[in-house]
């Protein structure tokens, strides 16, 4: 990803946050993300986020699980190592259904978990920039992505007018990265040199 410039606004009430999100979107600013201490219902719609396609991925993973199970078991029991169990035919489909079902669930569950982690950029050992230390405590933090033409002064004044308790400009890594170092510190160190 890239290092970008953000305007950060911290709100202390979700009832202030919702109108602010609406105003900021209407004025054409690009909301990078909003960080809240708890799941706020309706915020995704207010931010204009689209519904997830995770369930389609889950369906495909499930199909993979089904075909893996049926394919593998039928290959074993009909051609690789055909044995008669309990007087049943080699191709004894009803007996395989439980395993097929379990494998379908396993593939769908594991696949969806990993896809979910990827989409949300969370993974063990992965870091993301924290815009405000209290975003997981008691503040609702909105990060707005700025470009070279945006007037920092105007943005901060505008955010203040929407009811933000704290506003600031921050330069930070927009995406995720793997490693121990906070990218912001590294960036500041580099800038100091």
């Amino acid at each position, binding site marked *: 990803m890239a290092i970008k410039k953000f305007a950060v606004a911290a709100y202390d009430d979700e009832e202030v946050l919702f109108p602010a999100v609406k105003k900021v979107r209407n004025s054409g600013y690009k909301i990078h993300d909003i960080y809240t201490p708890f799941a706020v219902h309706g915020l995704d719609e207010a931010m204009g986020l689209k519904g997830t396609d995770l*369930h389609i991925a889950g*369906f495909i993973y499930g199909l993979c699980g089904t075909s893996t199970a049926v394919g593998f078991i039928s290959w074993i029991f009909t051609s690789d190592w055909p044995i008669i169990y*309990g*007087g*049943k035919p080699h191709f004894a489909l*009803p*007996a395989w*259904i*439980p395993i097929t079902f379990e494998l379908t669930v396993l593939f769908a569950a594991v696949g969806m978990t990993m896809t979910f982690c990827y989409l949300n950029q969370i993974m063990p050992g992965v870091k993301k920039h924290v815009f405000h230390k209290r975003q997981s405590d008691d503040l609702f933090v909105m990060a707005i992505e700025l470009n070279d033409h945006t007037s920092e002064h105007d943005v901060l004044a505008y955010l203040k007018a929407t009811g933000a308790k704290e506003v600031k400009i921050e330069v930070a890594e927009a995406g995720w990265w793997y490693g121990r170092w906070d990218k912001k510190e590294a960036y500041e160190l580099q800038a100091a040199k």
Partner: protein
Amino acid sequence: MNDRFEIPARLRNTSIALIAVGVLALIGGIACLLMSHNDLDRARFWTTLLHDSVFFTLITAVSIFVQAAVSLAQGAWLTAYKRVPEAIGANVWVFGTITAIVSFLIVFTFRDSHGINTIYEWVTPGKDKLLLGKKAFLNPGMFVGFTLVTVGLWAFFGYKFRAMSIAQESAPKNDTKIYWKVFRLSGVFLFVYALTQMSTTPWLWVMSVQPHWYSTLFSWYTFASAFVSGMSLILLWVIYLKNQGNLQLVTTEHMHDLGKFMFAFSIFWTYLWFAQYMLIWYANIPDETVYFKMRQQGPYSVIFYANFIINFCMPLIILMARPSKRNYFTVTFMAMVIIFGHWMDFFQMIMPGSLGEHWHINWYEIGIFMGFAGILIFSVSRTLTKSSLVPHNNLLLKEAIVHLS
């Protein structure tokens, strides 16, 4: 807001026409089948009546169960269209009475030319060791007692839940007295339901048609079948009322919930269907496989496989996607398919035991089914007119209105 339901002339005429078809089929059945000297014709007459009355009793009783389960879980999602399950549940007594009459007539009057009751074989066990061994449970006294208790309790709770919900309308605002009374009675009803629908009743009404065979899963399986068609029935009524301009509080979100129930419990039905099938298939004990020999490989194989496709494959594929559960046409279509599919499911539970390979789905079966559907439409629509369709003053109404599925 239009919260009173008035029966449109078209609905009343349709229901009366359906009842007329049913009565004609019944008269035709009495003339052609009951008066016949052929034992199979007479068995067909009674078994069809038994099949339809049991099916309609069980799917309407589901509405009482849904109310009780939702009140006990303190769920609000049902409240927006609460009057529909209440009206269906309050009419369980109609079908319960018919079932009681039909099954008692079968137990006490039906005999073939050899003096054997071919539908409920345990009534005339003769020297059959297995049936004599089951006599402690499978005897006319037990049958009559359980049937009367079941029908009586269902009728009482169906009536009571509706009466209490209507009493809430005139109660003081935010008064929780009735709410907790319903809550307690719901617990009692679930207990009753577990001991009737989920165990004894299907044993006596349905499974005892083949008294030599038994399955411990059977009542759950019939419950799943009844539950999914009962939810479809509620959905059909809700959509009908919405199309009439009533139930304006009900939105796509509520329909989505009902669609989820249809989808999920179709899969639940398949789970039980398969659990019963696989254990019998795997163990391969002749006492048990006799049930599936006739259904899967015998004369019922068409119904057996059609059953699987209609009740599992179709809901799975058609109702899986979110947009299809939110589309009124798809859910209405699927609700009708599911009700028909589970009617067929009950058909293949009951028919093989008494008719063997001589089954029919012909003018008589379809006519009787239409008659029962007519009674259902007629009685439920009459009950719906008697109160406001919006449960005013219900404590959960606001939560139900803002409900998101």
